């Protein structure tokens, strides 16, 4: 059973596939996979109000094909950085500055780290396997992925780069990543998701869970530039301890369909999260994003910002949720979403929401979506700039405040490059 189409598979097929592929794993992991396999056929595809999945024929995918073996070779990591390269979720190379490994920083394939008690404890805690059919498929069939653990109280900032790449024959990929930042340590992670240019129709499922222990700080940046044949389901969630900080910087550019969310659980007093999402849709791309901040504890703060540009017939939805629970006194939750449309056929919806169950808090949201200012285009063209150049300048001006605020310089430059490419495309 090296290859099978999902809608022809029985529960028994799925379970024996799991046994065949993952039978060697520790009992706890195998048991979870089997229970996910049992759930696959009973669960529905994700139900998204503005993103119908029916006509995408996801169940026609060759889900069980073993991912092709890696073919790339890794380039040298930037000075001082730890870096991990993955092809079709399989680790190709890991490089780690000696200073970091001496202090106990671990960066490796998640499947290779299943013996670690932290993995058993945290994996699946924030992103369960019973939400929908993709979650269950991922629970049963995930492989590879990244395990990063930074011990408590590392003095210097630990810099980690994850380069994830899918090749033409991938079909369906299910990845899980687990990041644990120990107390009072500071980690920056940049994740690059890309595929070969001519990749065939691929279901890409990425689940990343981030645990930030007391006083720790994680700056997580990601840029997604997959081919248009990719249908991506990218989920990220973080749990924050006392005074912990989690900053998200997400740049979304590729994939024909992308359903992407990131969630922060502010579990303990003093926890803080910020999130910046920059997205740019062109052609017939469909992008469904959401960002959520859950204030479970007093004196927690969240600030969510999203800016997107839509051109051609692209379509986006951005749903923001800030939820402040009863008892989370003195919390502060904000969100702001803005979309710029470059054509009449483009469409963008911004749906902010606040759920506040505590009186003593500050919460605010703002959203806008509108076409490019034609008077501004006229103004610029009247000075001799071509219309595309005028639009480029306007898009730049629109995105600059959020992109320039990205704390990770190398990611910031790549986001700008991606924007330039999308403008010209």
């Amino acid at each position, binding site marked *: 059973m090296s290859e099978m189409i999902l809608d022809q598979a029985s529960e028994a097929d799925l379970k024996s596939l799991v046994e065949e592929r993952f039978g060697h794993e520790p009992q706890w992991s195998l048991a979870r996979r089997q229970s996910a396999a049992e759930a696959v056929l009973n669960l529905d595809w994700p139900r998204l109000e503005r993103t119908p999945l029916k006509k995408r024929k996801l169940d026609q995918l060759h889900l069980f094909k073993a991912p092709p073996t890696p073919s790339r070779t890794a380039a040298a990591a930037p000075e001082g950085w730890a870096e991990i390269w993955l092809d079709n979720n399989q680790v190709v190379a890991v490089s780690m500055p000696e200073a970091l490994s001496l202090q106990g920083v671990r960066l490796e394939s998640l499947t290779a780290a299943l013996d670690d008690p932290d993995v058993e404890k945290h994996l699946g805690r924030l992103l369960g396997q019973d939400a929908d059919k993709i979650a269950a498929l991922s629970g049963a069939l995930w492989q590879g992925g990244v395990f990063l653990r930074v011990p408590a109280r590392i003095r210097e900032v630990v810099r980690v780069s994850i380069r994830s790449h899918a090749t033409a024959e991938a079909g369906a990929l299910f990845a899980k990543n687990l990041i644990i930042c120990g107390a009072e340590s500071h980690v920056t992670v940049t994740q690059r998701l890309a595929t070969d240019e001519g990749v065939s129709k691929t279901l890409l499922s990425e689940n990343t869970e981030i645990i930030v222990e007391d006083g720790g700080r994680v700056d997580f940046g990601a840029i997604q530039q997959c081919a248009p044949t990719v249908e991506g389901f990218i989920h990220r969630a973080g749990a924050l301890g006392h005074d912990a900080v989690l900053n998200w910087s997400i740049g979304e550019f590729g994939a024909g369909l992308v359903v992407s969310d990131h969630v922060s659980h502010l579990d303990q007093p003093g926890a803080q999260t910020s999130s910046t999402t920059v997205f740019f849709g062109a052609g017939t791309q469909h992008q469904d994003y959401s960002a959520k901040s859950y204030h479970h504890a007093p004196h927690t703060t969240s600030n969510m910002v999203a800016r997107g540009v839509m051109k051609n017939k692209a379509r986006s939805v951005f749903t923001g949720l800030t939820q402040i629970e009863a008892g989370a006194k003195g919390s502060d939750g904000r969100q702001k979403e803005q979309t710029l449309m470059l054509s009449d056929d483009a469409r963008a919806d911004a749906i902010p929401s606040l759920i506040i169950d505590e009186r003593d808090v500050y919460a605010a949201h703002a959203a806008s979506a509108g076409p490019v200012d034609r008077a501004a285009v*006229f103004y610029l063209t*009247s000075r001799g700039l071509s219309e595309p150049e005028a639009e480029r300048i306007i898009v730049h001006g629109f995105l600059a405040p959020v992109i320039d605020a990205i704390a990770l310089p190398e990611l910031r430059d790549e986001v700008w490059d991606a924007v330039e490419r999308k403008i010209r495309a």
Partner: protein
Amino acid sequence: MSTPVLEISDLHMRIEEKQILKGLTLTIKGGEIHAVMGPNGTGKTSLAQCLMGHPRYQITGGSVRLDGEDMLTMKPDERARHGLFLAMQYPSEISGVTTANFLRAAINARREDGTSISLKAFRDQLDEVMGFLDMDPKFANRYLNEGFSGGEKKRNEILQMLMLKPRIAILDEIDSGLDIDAIKVVSKGVNSLKGPDFGSLIITHYQRILDYVHPDFVHIMVDGTIVKSGGPELALELDKKGYEWVRTELAQSTHQA
């Protein structure tokens, strides 16, 4: 470069269902300064924007030629490259591009040979013009018009005009909202371009600016056409008597005809 000639002839134009220009004829040549005055809503800004090629306007008759070339088929940027310039009544605020970077891009876009102006040459020129216009050099590094006061925006329009060196410049209420010192500066800018290679159309409500930029011709525009043309004395007369005078005179002449 040859003396420019902008010929507007029997121009009819409308926005949506509203006819704005109803057969407007006017020729502006290099060396000439024309002033157009007229009551609010009479179509002056519409004329200016339509000459520059704003896509909103629908031409229903007539022609606009620069040196004999049909302008109406050209996009705004092509018109600009042919030497047309419009200082706008309400300049847009453009975030994300500094005035300096924008001007450099605009100068490069207008160069026919595809070469770029060197940074040094550009900077020198910019410094000189800003000095000439009494502008604080820091405006060069601010985003184009963003947060500029009304007067600062107008001065910025003149800065752009001097940097881009158009052959025909249309100035739409460049004097509105300016204090007297600013009017002098703006006028100084316009006067510095005066010569056989430069013609200008100044749209204004006030005689004041015409004390500094002396028009060769003054036209009164009412309801989408030029109803009366004359020399500088016409502006003075208008200043004294107001538009009612023109309307009455107009009514009489139609009556007589």
